[in-house]
């Protein structure tokens, strides 16, 4: 005879635990004789609790979701910002002395940046175009521009970048960026330009 209420109690406790989904509340009485009314109240309370809890959880989840979304958006924006920054770095031109195709000392660091970018973004393929000022011979300048483009490529390749990731081309003096006919314009036009051929969608900062 002693087993029945015990069983009942255990059953109730299991039900409570199941309903609350948590620990049985210690204040909940477990009366033996009046178990029915009390347990109903307790069940009601527990139900209300669980609803409130669920609602709160839903709110929390939503908030977390929002937060996560925000974080994703933020990180995407950050990635975009970094892609933009990387692109700008990559597009930085290097310049040359008149009728020369030697990388200037100051421009080696510019190429080092590009090398780091290429290393951080293995899918990135670029094209280097060599350009000249208008003073030399029109057709010779195509050969000179070619030397300038390959000088930059050789620098990058000698620092470990796979040669197949870099194309070169020369435009001679055919595509000046400065139109004036003075030393300042000529200095600007004696340059290598760097453009992205592939893999430039999301660029990581090195």
């Amino acid at each position: 005879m002693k087993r029945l209420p015990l069983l009942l109690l255990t059953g109730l406790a299991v039900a409570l635990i199941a309903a609350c989904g948590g620990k049985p509340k210690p204040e909940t009485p477990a009366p033996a004789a009046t178990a029915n009314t009390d347990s109903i109240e307790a069940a009601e309370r527990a139900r209300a609790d669980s609803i409130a809890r669920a609602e709160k959880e839903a709110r929390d989840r939503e908030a977390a979701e929002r937060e996560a979304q925000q974080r994703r958006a933020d990180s995407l924006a950050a990635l975009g910002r970094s892609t933009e920054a990387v692109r700008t770095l990559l597009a930085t031109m290097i310049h040359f002395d008149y009728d020369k195709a030697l990388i200037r000392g100051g421009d080696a660091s510019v190429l080092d940046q590009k090398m780091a970018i290429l290393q951080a973004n293995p899918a990135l393929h670029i094209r280097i175009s060599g350009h000249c000022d208008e003073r030399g011979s029109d057709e010779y300048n195509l050969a000179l521009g070619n030397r300038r483009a390959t000088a930059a490529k050789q620098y990058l390749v000698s620092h470990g970048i796979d040669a197949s990731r870099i194309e070169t081309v020369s435009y001679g003096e055919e595509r000046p960026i400065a139109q004036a006919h003075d030393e300042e314009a000529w200095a600007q036009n004696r340059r290598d330009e760097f453009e992205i051929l592939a893999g430039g969608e999301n660029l990581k900062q090195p």
Partner: protein
Amino acid sequence: MKPGSRFGGWAGSLTAVLLTAYPANRLSAQDTSAIDRGVRIGIVYRPGVRPGMVVLPVPKAALDSVRALVVRDVDYSDRFEPITLPGGDSIRAASPPSSPSAGRTATGGGGARGTGGAAVATGLNYPLYQALGADFVVGITPAAGDSTVVTVYDVAAGGVRRELRARLPALGDAGFRLAVHRLADRVLEASLGVGGTAATRILFVMNGKVYTIDQDGADQRLVSSSDHQAMSPAWAGDGRRFAYMEFWEGHGRLFVQDVASGKRAPVATTGQALDFTPAFSPDGKTLAFSRAIEEGTDVYTVNVKDGCCLQRLTVGRFYDNLSPTYSPDGRRIAFVSTRPGLPQIYVMSADGTDQQLFAPFDYGATGSSNAPEWSPDGQTVAFHRDVGGTLQVFVLDVRTRAVRQLTSVGRNEDPTWAPDSRHMAFVSDRSGYRQLWIIDVETGRIRPLLQQSGARLPAWSPRLPETASSAP
């Protein structure tokens, strides 16, 4: 001993000997003229040395344009002194006598009365033209069946030198000017026995497009059909095709275009690398060109007849080789090489062997030399060289390897020979902007070809074939 006076006397007599011994050295003219004022100033150029030529007034208004073109072609040939009749060009010769059959039939009978006797029925008033300083007189008369007869009179011999007959297209037809130019070339051939350059055109590049223009500055037309930036047009020896280079995405492609149809085709082996400065072999079967790869720039040839057989003629790992130009016998190629540190003019056999320096230079003193073009007579190679920071046109004598500077006013570059190997088109900024000029290498006389800024990279055609006149 009075060495000073002795030397002075010796030097003086030597100078006198030199002056008398070499009065008119061929290819000794220098362009020192103040060209902008239209005045010829020069040491070598002497009016009167050249034979005088009178082109008679025409009896028919329709022939005025023909006469005007012929007179200008005669003038531009720089081989005659064109003589204007007293009374100028306004007079018109009367209709020719009714029987145009006889070669000695006079032209311009009216001239005999109006201007002191151009001709009488039995022939030209030769003593009159002799007195005017004319060696040749040219009469242009209409003949039966829409044809035109051009009579070349030899004043000294007192007879007709040659009678030329031509069927000229109507004035305003596409082929009219070229047909008249061809007639003018025949006049030159009939009188002096040398070929003229009137029936020729010059290709050039302006704003990245290829244009053609007649040698007298008329009829400028766009011939490149794509939006790609173009460079370096070059004629085939038959005057029916030309090659040029275009920038495509990341490389330079060569095309060969048909003059008459305007159709073009890419050169078979072109497309991946940067190919430029095409040059036809004299037989038109081979195209030599420069190819820039990462190793550097080198000269290649390709068989354009069969579209095959790419051959590499130079291997310069640490220097560039470019801008090939064939000798007219097709056996040699002059080109630019940077092996001495700066670009200079080299020569090799057409198969790439026996490469050697062509135009001598002084290490450390002579500037870069570029853009060689072998003359059609094979005797000279024109090129431009950096002189004190600007470019000047030079001529290399192939036999003696002597180099002579031809220009000195402004920046002058990219010379191209006319088929007479005597006239040359080049780019000059002497008028304030870069445009095309023509110089007569023998007299130094110079004229602008067109008045547009930005024209460059000219290529003078050979004498154009008849069919080229029907070009659209």
